[in-house]
């Protein structure tokens, strides 16, 4: 090369993740599996809700699970108790799952007869919003013990989510969380977002969640 030359590139920086995510999407479509990517802050109740869902829908929907945490297989163990197939992904230092991690974990999952794949992301309302894992939809959880302005504070997450689940409603009488205001805030950021309120502990609101979930399955 003689002397400097300027070259036009136009390559997306997150292109690699998106390519792998598309490959996952195609792979799941081949076997008719619908994937849902569950996100939230740590402690919003993702694992508890998923375990309850798996138990209640046993026999109706065949659901496999990918669990994402920095360390431990505690969540995978809780899911395994329901009898569902589950694989634990330990990100070690990463605070979100990416398509590469999901793609590799799927090699350890037996898909025969599976209707849905639950991907429980690492607890984090920031980074998971930007990583496509090949899911049909991101579902963001938010518990009443958090702030009702969370959708405004973390707009990207609530904008890319197709649905929001307000969890732990059984604790609502004990906190200052304004559920209606929270829903209003979520709709400011994402007017079309589907919202469900429930308590995995008391069962309140679960039937509406299950109905919605079944409508998402292919």
């Amino acid at each position, binding site marked *: *090369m003689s*002397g*400097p*030359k*300027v*070259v*036009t*590139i*136009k*390559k*997306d*920086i*997150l292109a*690699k993740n998106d390519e792998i995510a598309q490959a996952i999407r195609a792979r799941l479509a081949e076997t008719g599996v619908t994937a849902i990517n569950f996100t939230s802050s740590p402690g919003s109740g993702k694992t508890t809700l998923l375990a309850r869902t798996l138990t209640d829908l046993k026999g109706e929907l065949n659901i496999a699970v990918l669990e994402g945490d920095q360390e431990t297989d505690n969540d995978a163990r809780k899911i395994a108790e329901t009898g569902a197939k589950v694989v634990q992904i330990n990100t070690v230092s990463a605070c979100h799952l990416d398509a590469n991690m999901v793609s590799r974990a799927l090699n350890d999952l037996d898909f025969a007869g599976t209707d849905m794949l639950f991907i429980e992301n690492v607890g984090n309302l*920031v*980074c998971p*919003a*930007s990583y496509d894992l090949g899911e049909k939809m991101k579902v963001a959880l938010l518990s009443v013990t958090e702030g009702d302005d969370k959708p*405004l504070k973390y*707009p*990207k997450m609530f*904008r890319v989510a197709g649905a929001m689940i307000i969890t732990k409603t059984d604790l609502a009488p004990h906190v200052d969380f304004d559920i209606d205001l929270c829903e209003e805030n979520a709709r*400011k*950021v*994402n*007017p*079309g977002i589907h919202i469900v309120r429930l308590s995995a502990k008391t069962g309140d609101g679960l039937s509406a969640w299950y109905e919605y979930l079944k409508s998402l399955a292919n």
Partner: protein
Amino acid sequence: MHEMSIAIGIIDIVEASAKENGARKVNRVTVDIGELSGVEADAVAFCYEASAKGSVAEGSALIINRIKGRAFCPECEKEFTPPSQRSAVCPDCNGFECKIIAGEELQVTQMEME
């Protein structure tokens, strides 16, 4: 967001392109970072030098084009600037069905190499 991993992503693209073009040295890399992309341009700039060390991009300058957010309201058939990442609500008709048409870019656009 992971500005460090974004910086590393830029280096990956730069190295691949340098190899493709038979370049041994990269002088300048230009990237577009949209205001609505969720990525902190300053943090990427901060991480770039560290990420470039030991690669063909070492010593290169990173030029960041910050792309302003723009949205389009199909009701009013007009473009507007959304106030933040929060929402693209039309300032004229308060309509929600607006499409974001600019500001989500995260792309390496150009390189100068030899």
